[in-house]
């Protein structure tokens, strides 16, 4: 058996005249956590939805989608039977309790009441929701609702998990809890495909990522390697600098420091901390801030700092 869980080639989707996904190809290995990153409107969600049959791809000659040996074009139900899906928007049955939400959903997998009861208890414990099992979902906080939607996606013990922005809008405690759980699932052998625009999320849990922008793949690789390959090690942020002074530019040029100005902040990139530090000594500006470059810097570098018309 191949070690490939998802193998996608030539994925395309147009909505009217808008190109949502443009000739997109990628592979996800088994037991890997794979992240699709990109600004809003980059095509992440559409890509994901095409893999489980919620959106129909436009078929080109070279289009091929293989998900554990099945194509969503004709075998979407088989794919959904072994997958768990967490959509972007929580969509629980607000009139039902936590327990009943899961029970109703267990029927879709043909579980008996007894099988479901065992599994639901396990999942409520896993997602730390046991105490809420008789509470109406309307009364749950956003973080609890999200955990319940994730628990729901795990009812069938999926071998593949699709997560569309799993932690958007949640507080740091809940985000860390969800990351822990996702790492646990990944380490137990579950393949995970997630979309996010939180760079930290990708950095924390993804083995590999793709950065998408304007319906296309921009970069692909391991988060750390992508940063080291594409960015200097450090960045210096100088606020209140609409136009860099001449002596400042001269210093950057002499030391081959790359810089850019956005709004009223100057960003200077360099792999030598000392060179940046030396600048702060000259300029005596107290608001200067030097830090390691991160995935967010990379993201902004490749997708641009300004908003596009879809964001």
């Amino acid at each position: 058996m191949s070690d490939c869980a998802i193998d996608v080639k030539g994925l395309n989707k147009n909505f009217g005249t808008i190109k949502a996904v443009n000739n997109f190809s990628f592979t996800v290995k088994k037991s890997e956590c794979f992240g699709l990153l990109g600004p809003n409107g980059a095509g992440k969600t559409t890509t994901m939805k095409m893999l489980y049959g919620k959106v129909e791809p436009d078929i080109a000659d070279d289009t091929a989608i293989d998900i554990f040996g099945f194509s969503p074009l004709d075998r979407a139900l088989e794919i959904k039977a072994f997958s768990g899906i967490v959509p972007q928007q929580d969509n629980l049955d607000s009139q039902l309790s936590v327990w009943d939400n899961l029970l109703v959903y267990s029927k879709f997998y043909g579980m008996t009441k007894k099988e479901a009861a065992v599994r639901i208890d396990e999942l409520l414990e896993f997602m730390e929701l046991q105490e809420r099992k008789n509470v109406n979902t309307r009364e749950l906080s956003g973080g609890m609702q999200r955990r319940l939607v994730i628990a729901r996606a795990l009812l069938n013990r999926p071998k593949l998990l699709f997560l569309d922005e799993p932690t958007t809008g949640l507080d740091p405690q809940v985000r860390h809890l969800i990351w822990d759980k996702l790492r646990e699932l990944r380490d137990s052998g579950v393949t995970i495909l997630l979309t996010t625009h939180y760079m930290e999320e990708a950095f924390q849990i993804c083995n590999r990522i793709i950065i998408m922008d304007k319906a296309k793949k921009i970069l692909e690789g391991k988060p750390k390697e992508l940063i080291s390959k594409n960015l200097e090690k450090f960045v210096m942020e100088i606020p209140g600098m609409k136009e860099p002074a001449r002596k400042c530019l001269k210093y950057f040029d002499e030391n081959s420091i790359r810089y850019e100005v956005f709004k009223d902040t100057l960003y200077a990139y360099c792999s030598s901390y000392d060179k940046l530090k030396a600048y702060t000594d000259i300029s005596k500006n107290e608001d200067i801030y030097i830090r390691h470059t991160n995935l967010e810097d990379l993201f902004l570098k490749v997708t641009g700092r300004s908003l596009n018309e879809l964001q």
Partner: protein
Amino acid sequence: MSSSNFHKKPSLVTRLYSVWYRHIRVYNSNFWSNAFPPFFEPLIFLAGLGLGFGKYIPDMAGIPYIIYLGSGLIVTSAMYTAAFECSYGTFIRLEFDRVYDGMLGAPISAENLIIGEIIFAGTKGFFFSIAVLAVVWGFGIITEPLSILSPFAGLLTGLMFATASIYITAYIKNINHFNFFFTGILSPMFFFSGVIFPVEELPAAAIPIAEALPLTHAVRLARAFCVPELLSPWLLLDLLYCIIFIIVTGWLGVRAMKRRIIL
């Protein structure tokens, strides 16, 4: 956690049943408020129209008016409940609560989802017809034993109006547009399909239109079970109309709604 007995695609019956089960569970979660209207509504109609009007119109087409009206209400309540379920109900699940997005994460197809919903609305029509029947029995208005079969006309009515409503909902972008459906289509149907007075009393030009309406045929079936003198082989044509209507509108409705759900 990766091995499981639940990775097989469930059977068609399981898939349709699970959609139906979801709707029943949600419906029953507000049991008392949901069980109230099907029993109380026929009471208002019978009291308002039957007692008030009925005094002045002792007979309608040779049948005591209260029986005439009561037998018609058995299917109109099914019509309204199925139409509401598959218009406002469906639209809210589709656009506001996004329940369909959640359900389609499970191994069911969009077709399963829509057909399960139609079956649920049919069941609801059946239940509402039973409620009306219980009321007319309880007041001794209808005593004919054969009337026990009339809720099956309610089931057909529920299925007809579920399919038609799904078809319309597939094209509705704004929830307020359902006003055209309810006031423009269902209200006239209530008055001109032989529930309140016989279709034959309509102007000659309007009779073929009334005959084309689904409710007319369902009323005829329900009434014949309540007043056995009306039973005739011609009713098979009414039955055939209902079945063809469900199949054709159902096919159109599922196709149109699927296009809306699967992008």
